[in-house]
């Protein structure tokens, strides 16, 4: 069945070529146009076989179908390759976040005033590797019970950076006015943010070194979802 289809296709293509090659030759011969060309009237007589209505119809259908199929097929390689490259970022994962040494326990006062720390780590940006570069910042806050809170400074609303406001004793985002509780990081009732500040895992190791698992999270949604 498939073979027959290709046979028909082949004969149709052959007919097309035979039929039009004469025209092409004429066009080529007339590149140097006289003032008034009679190109329109110089068609060769149509072969008898092609003139039969059912043959002409079938041939036309095959050519149409062939054009659509081939036209679609030839466009696939460049478009597919293009889309594959365009989608490349989806394939790249950042990998699991690691704990980073941030400071010493002694640097954190126990009065509940947060301190801001820049997080340094190796960063891969497409073709470049930036060793030990600033990749983000956190607020660390040591409570009187010894517990340490760590918050990513990125506002969970739309991704600006929050600041600690001494006057209000809260965290505040200067973009769309989200405010967050100093103790818990939860958003103030009239804040546009969908969730509280993103807390990070903290551990104290090697006699008083504060280590934080630094991660960024998807802004704008109520769920805390790590960007991977």
């Amino acid at each position: 069945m498939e073979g027959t289809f290709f046979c028909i296709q082949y004969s149709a293509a052959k007919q097309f070529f035979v039929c039009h090659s004469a025209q092409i030759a004429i066009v080529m011969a007339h590149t140097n146009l006289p003032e008034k060309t009679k190109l329109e009237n110089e068609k060769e007589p149509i072969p008898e076989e092609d003139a039969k209505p059912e043959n002409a119809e079938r041939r036309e259908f095959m050519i149409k179908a062939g054009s659509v199929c081939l036209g679609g097929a030839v466009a696939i390689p460049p478009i597919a390759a293009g889309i594959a490259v365009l989608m490349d970022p989806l394939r790249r994962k950042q990998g699991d976040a690691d704990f980073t040494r941030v400071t010493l326990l002694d640097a954190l006062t126990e009065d509940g005033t947060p301190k801001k720390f820049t997080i340094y780590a190796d960063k891969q940006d497409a073709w470049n590797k930036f060793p030990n570069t600033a990749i983000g910042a956190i607020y660390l806050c040591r409570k009187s019970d010894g517990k340490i809170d760590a918050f990513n400074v990125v506002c969970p609303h739309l991704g600006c950076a929050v600041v600690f406001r001494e006057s209000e004793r809260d965290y505040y985002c200067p973009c769309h006015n989200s405010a967050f509780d100093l103790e818990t990081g939860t958003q103030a009732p009239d804040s546009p943010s969908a969730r509280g500040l993103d807390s990070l895992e903290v551990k104290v190791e090697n006699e008083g070194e504060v280590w934080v698992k630094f991660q960024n999270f998807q802004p704008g949604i109520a769920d805390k979802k790590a960007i991977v």
Partner: protein
Amino acid sequence: MKALLGWLDRRTGYKKIVNEILFENIPGGPRWRYIWGSALTFCIFVQFATGIMLWMAYSPSSQTAWESVYFIQEEMNAGWLLRGIHHYAAQLMTVLLILHLMQVVIDKAYTAPREVNYWFGLGLLFLVMALSLTGYLLPWDQKGYWATKVATNMVAITPVIGESLQKIVIGGADYGHHTLTRFFALHAGVLPGLLILLIVAHIYLFRRHGIKAKKPFRRADTPFWPEQVFRDIVAALAVMAAILALVLWFGGAHLSAPADPAERYPARPDWYFMFLFQFLKYFKGEGVLWGGIYIPAFIVGLLFLMPFIGRWKQGHRFNLIFLYTLLGGFVYLTYIAYAKDAKDGEFQFAQEQARKDAERIRVLAKAPAGIPQGGATSLLRSDPYTQGPKIFADKCASCHAYGGMDGLGRELKEPPSAPDLKGVGSREWLAGFVDPDQIATAKYFGGTHFVDRDGGNQSRMVEYVMGLRDLSPRGQEELAKVVAAVSAQAELKSQKELDEADSDLIQEGSDLFWDGITGVDEACIDCHGWDGEESSESRTPDLTGWMSREYMIEFIKNPEHPRFYGSGNDRMPAYGEEGTLTVQQIGLVVDWLRGEWYEPVDELMP
């Protein structure tokens, strides 16, 4: 010539096209109110011409984008003018597009048979907005970086596909090289391509349906050429004059400091998106979806449906009211946003800092060392003049003052409880320190436990200085010599010439350090280390190399080191040992306190 044109016409039929373009009939004659389309076409021409030239000098990557734009702006022939024209023509185009849309709706030119053309027009409006948005990021400066970050975070809140869509748009999980390459491809390739297509289609349909003539006609019909063309060209002239006026008024397009993810910046979009910025503040929680996506999409949908709504009896009136409301809302929200910012002290302060950074980076980029291979971000990051006060305000100003302020020129949140460090190391600073009237003030040891120790006792140093009150004139003179000698240890840039000139006096002062001042029982050496000799007491600082760069760095790293205060330290944290500051950060704040940063040499000096 005629024969040649005839030859060309037989092969191309250009005469017919030119005829159609130039001699299109304008019912009722030429009018000034028909100029908007041409004015916009002119703007687009300006954007293509200037955009392609900018393209020839621009390099999209996170280490070269800002740098190449800086080079265009500051170094290349008329670069500031080219960039200025491109920037302000974009702004003007937004205004003209809105006016054009208003006119089309007011004149009811969006109804049959012109619906499709109206849609093309709307499409053009959104394309121009997309061009503005993508163009805003390309200089990779703080302003564009942070504003666009908010915009692309809004992409991420799109239900279901948001996260993946955002990754595709910004080329990864975070901003970087591929964000720029993508935005540039959109800004200079995809969007202008679509723009051309839509403009050709828009003008073709406009010609097909003819102009929507305003009645009553004042004159007989005329062809497009020359009278309407003349009016259109005058309009283009006015547009160009407006663009140039804006460029000259603002001194070209602004370029803020290079994008730095670690440096806070008050993110604000350009004026035409400020309404959306303000609008987003009103939506709580996941309502941001409504403010950022659903409502804007609904408005856009309604705009597209206007031709159909206009068919109903009151439809046109509805459309007009809707459009006026939209415009009113746009103006109102924009006004509110700016008014709030004007009153927001924190924002104004942050913006002032950003302005200073933008100014400073120009100085550094023009320095003989130039912009390093890794890009200009490192210039500001390693500049004591920029970073010193920021680190000081952040880490030191909770106890120390700098000239009574927090280093960045703000009032202190609490009265200072440790010495004011402006001019630290200088003779003037030290002379104040050994002044009995000053040592116990807030400027020096007033807030420390050296003054009020263990229930009112003073430290030995404070007692010593208090004892200098009745010093003889000779003693005063000797004290000044000791001050000069100790201060010379700092090797301050600002005192270099003075120290060199006073070398004899400094030597005398050094001797007096050992021998003591006339009329005073104790000599400095009795407590402090000097000239290589270590301190005899572990709780008093060694003054060899006092306030030199190395001394200050080591001191800030750990003031409890035996070389400094040992167990006598008041509350000063060991910033280096605790890891609160890196050695580089300590170096930056020390260099700033010592007044050592790059300053351009005045070119007028011989």
